[in-house]
Each structure stands twice: as C-alpha cells, then as structure tokens.
C-alpha cells in the first residue's frame, strides 16, 4: 500500500459562516433516514410485529367466528399500537442509548447543529416510520379482513369507505406517535446504559402496550378493564378506534385524545429533564 499523502494544502477559505438551519436539517434528515432504512432490526420491529399480531387476531376471528378482544377495528388499532410501541420503545430509545454510549451525539454536538435539531430530525424519522407502518397495516387489514378470511359482517374494517376515517386515523396516529416517542425519550432519559434499557424496555412493554389489549374486554373484570382502557396502549387504541369509525367518536374518544396528550407532555417532560447527551 502506498503512503498516504503527507499534507492537505487546501487553503482555509474565509469568510466562514454559520450554516442555515435548512442546510443542517437536510443533512441530518438524509442521514437519519438512511440509518433507519438500513437498520434491519428496526424494519422488523416496525412492520413485521404489527402484521403478525394483525394476522393472529384476524385468524382467531376466522377460526372461531367470534370476536375475542373487540371489534375488527379494535384489532387494527391494537396492531397499530404495537407497531408504534415497538418503534418507540424498542427501536428509538435503544438507538438513542446506543449512540449516546458510542459518543455519536457528542460528535454531532460539536458541529453548528443545535441540539434540538439533532433530536427533532430523529423524531421526525420515527414519526415517518410510524406512518409508513400504519399504511402497511391498514392495507394488510383490508387484505386480511376481506380477501383472506372473508369476514363480511357490517363491522368489518374497510377504512377505504371513508376518506374522513383515513384522515382522522392519520391525525390520531400523529398524536399517538407523540405519546410513544415521548415514552421512548423518557426511557432513554432515565436509563443511561443501552443494555439496561434493552431489559427495561421489554418490561415496560407490558404496562405500555400489552395492558391495552384488554381495554375493550371485561374478561378480567371491570376494574382491570378500566385500568387497561386508560393505560397508554389502551388510550391510543380507544383514540384510533374512534378515528377509524368517525360515527362512533364520542366523549370517551375526546377524553382519550386529552389523556394521550397529557401522557405525551408528562413523558416528554421527563425525557427532556433527565436526558443526557453523553454517557459519562
């Protein structure tokens, strides 16, 4: 191998200027999207898990011909919630913790990029991933619901019937993604080690997502159903359920919107207050 060239003789090129925010955001978003698309684990969590749950829930309906956990729309809401929880809790928070341990954030912080821009870029990519996941799940739900299992009763999911339902669903998805991303931020703020966060994230999955699966079922009693309904997962499922069937939007849905916003504010507050950019 030949010797590397000894010197760089390019002259310094004054006057230097602080880069425009648009230039910074363009560079950050391009890099963050590339990282997201290359991360096989994140892609698996983003798309495969909710599709598996969706398939399982609809398959159970097809086989037993009865609704176990809730209406078909609820099953879609549950799959969407699982997708968002996976992206935020197992994907986003882990990536943040790992990059923090490796010093990636410190390297970015010595550039002119403001710290809020570094984090906003990452969050925007996660929101985009959640919306992409939602699109895939909704398309798959139509396939599962109508073509594979032929569930043709009046409650069957067919969001295509209603443009309003789609728009409302995507608006509520943004509120819901804010909730789970703020939870992910709080976890990354409170737990510094990536290994510990991996373990804590899996445990946190239970109260944050799995509990919500029973928000429409009294199989464990009404008290459990109430707790489940207002857990983060249950709140999001109630909200999405209302969005997918606008005619059923009621005071509970409004309350779910308010509660999910409150959750977002509280968890984001925790995540910002205790977040540290460096591992030491």
């Amino acid at each position: 191998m030949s010797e590397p060239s000894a010197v760089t003789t390019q002259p310094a090129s004054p006057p230097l200027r602080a880069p425009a925010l648009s230039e910074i955001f363009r560079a950050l978003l391009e890099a963050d999207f590339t990282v997201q698309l290359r991360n096989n684990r994140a892609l698996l969590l983003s798309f495969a898990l909710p599709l598996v749950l969706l398939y399982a829930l609809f398959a159970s309906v097809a086989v037993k011909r009865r609704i176990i956990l809730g209406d078909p729309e609820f099953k879609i809401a549950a799959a969407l919630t699982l997708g968002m929880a996976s992206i935020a809790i197992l994907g986003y928070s882990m990536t943040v913790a790992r990059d923090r341990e490796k010093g990636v954030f410190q390297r970015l912080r010595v550039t002119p990029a403001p710290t809020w821009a570094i984090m906003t870029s990452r969050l925007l990519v996660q929101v985009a991933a959640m919306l992409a996941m939602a699109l895939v799940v909704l398309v798959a739900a139509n396939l599962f619901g109508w073509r594979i299992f032929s569930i043709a009763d009046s409650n069957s999911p067919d969001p295509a019937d209603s443009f309003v339902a789609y728009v409302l669903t995507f608006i509520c998805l943004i509120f819901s993604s804010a909730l789970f991303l703020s939870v992910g931020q709080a976890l990354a703020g409170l737990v510094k080690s990536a290994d510990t966060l991996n373990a804590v994230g899996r445990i946190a999955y239970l109260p944050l997502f799995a509990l919500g699966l029973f928000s429409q079922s009294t199989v464990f009693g009404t008290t459990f159903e109430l707790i489940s309904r207002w857990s983060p997962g249950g709140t999001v499922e109630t909200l999405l359920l209302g969005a997918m069937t606008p005619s059923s939007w009621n005071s509970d849905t409004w309350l779910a919107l308010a509660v999910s916003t409150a959750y977002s504010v509280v968890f984001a507050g925790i995540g910002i207050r205790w977040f540290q950019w460096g591992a030491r």
Partner: protein
Amino acid sequence: MTSEAPPVSGLALQVKDLRVSYGPKRAVDGVSLDINEGEIFGLLGPNGAGKTSTLSAIEGLLNPTSGSILIRQVDARAHPGLAKALIGVQLQSTSFQSDLKISEIVKLYAGLYGVPLTKQAIFDRLTEIHLGDEASRRFSQLSGGQQKRLSLLIATVHDPPLVLLDEPTSGLDPQARRQLWDRIEGIRKSGRSILLTTHSMEEAQSVCDRVAIMDDGKILTVDTPAGLIEKHKDDPNVLAVARGQVTLEDVFIGLTGRELRE
C-alpha cells in the same frame, strides 16, 4: 440566520480565566491562553489535569462556570453556532452512526457546516487520505489509523481556521503516528491553527510550536518546547527527576509530580 465571522485579528483563539466545575470539583481553574494564526499549540498534562475539559468548553460541549472564549473574535458563549462553524473538532474517542458508509458520514458532516459536496468531491477527499477504496465501508470496519485519518478529514471538511484535536495519535503505531503528524503539519501550512492535547512528549516536541503544561485545572507554564526546558532546567523538582540532560519529560514530571493519576 446565516451570519458571518468578523475579520481576522491575528489570534485564532483567546481564552480568559476559564473555569469549569463538575459539582463541587473544579476541573478547569482560571485557564487563560492565546493561540496565534497558523500556530500549533499543545496542552500537556497528566490524566485529570483538565485538558479535555478545557477543550470541551471551547467546543461547546461543556458550559463553563465563568470566563470568556473568543474564536477569531467571535464570543463562543454568546454565539455558539457561529463559533462552532469556525472550529473543526476531533474528539478523543470518535464514533459515527454505525449504519452509515464513510462516504455518507463525510457528506453528513459537510452538510452540517453548510458545505455541499458532490459524490466526486467526497471520493476525492477520501482518496486524498487513501480511503477512496473504503468509501462504502462502515467506520467500525476501518483500522485505528484509518479511523483517525477519517476523523481528521471530517474535522477539517469545512476548512476551519482553528482545529481542536484531543489526543489525536493515542493508540496509533509509530508509522500511523508519523503520518498523522505530517497531516497536522499540513493543516498548519494551509494557514490554520491547531490546539491539541497529548500525553506524548515526543509529539509535543515534534509538532507543537508552543506547549502549556496543565495540572489540577491550572496552566503551570507556557513556552516553546525548547523554551520550557531552558526555563525550568534549574528547577530543583526538575533536577530531582532528571536522568542526565534535562528533557521535556523531566520538566513535565518535575512540575506535575511523580504520583500516579487515575
């Protein structure tokens, strides 16, 4: 929000009475230093002396308790965005996003300084440091020397007037170290100033125009390497540790003590 740096004053960096604390512990205690245009300035000190904390404060990673930092007359505490555009930084241990290729890493960091680079320009810059063939590899797949070369390239991707290097040659074999010294010298020849920290007396003598020895958060002495030896050759503490002719290492040990630092 684009703003430009004021005209050059002759000083690349002015630090006055800088203090940095971690809770009750004062890591940097009244450090003042000036670095001229085109000068390579070395900070020497044992572990925990405050070298990295001083650099971190200048880089904007730490918020100083008090003191002023002027980078080409730009107040770094009042205008951190502009000040950061004026410096290039190589951290002690650098890591980049593991899923990015090194060509994408160069593109990212150039973009963060508002320097648009074409694919060809990125390839040319990588080729210049003999990493052209590695453009599609990940940072973690590079050897230690290659990583250091890439880090230095990224630190200077926007041609900053001041480059801060935190122990740039630690962990490198002699060949890679010599090559990096050549590159540092090349950066200086292009008109830029360099502030580096090091534990290597050989590096300080070979590369630096002036050297400051730090301990307990304070600068103990500043001069050229030869000037430091001349200034302290009759110091009893230095003579007590010297084995024959007084060296820069004797001066360093004599001023900072023989006890081990963690």
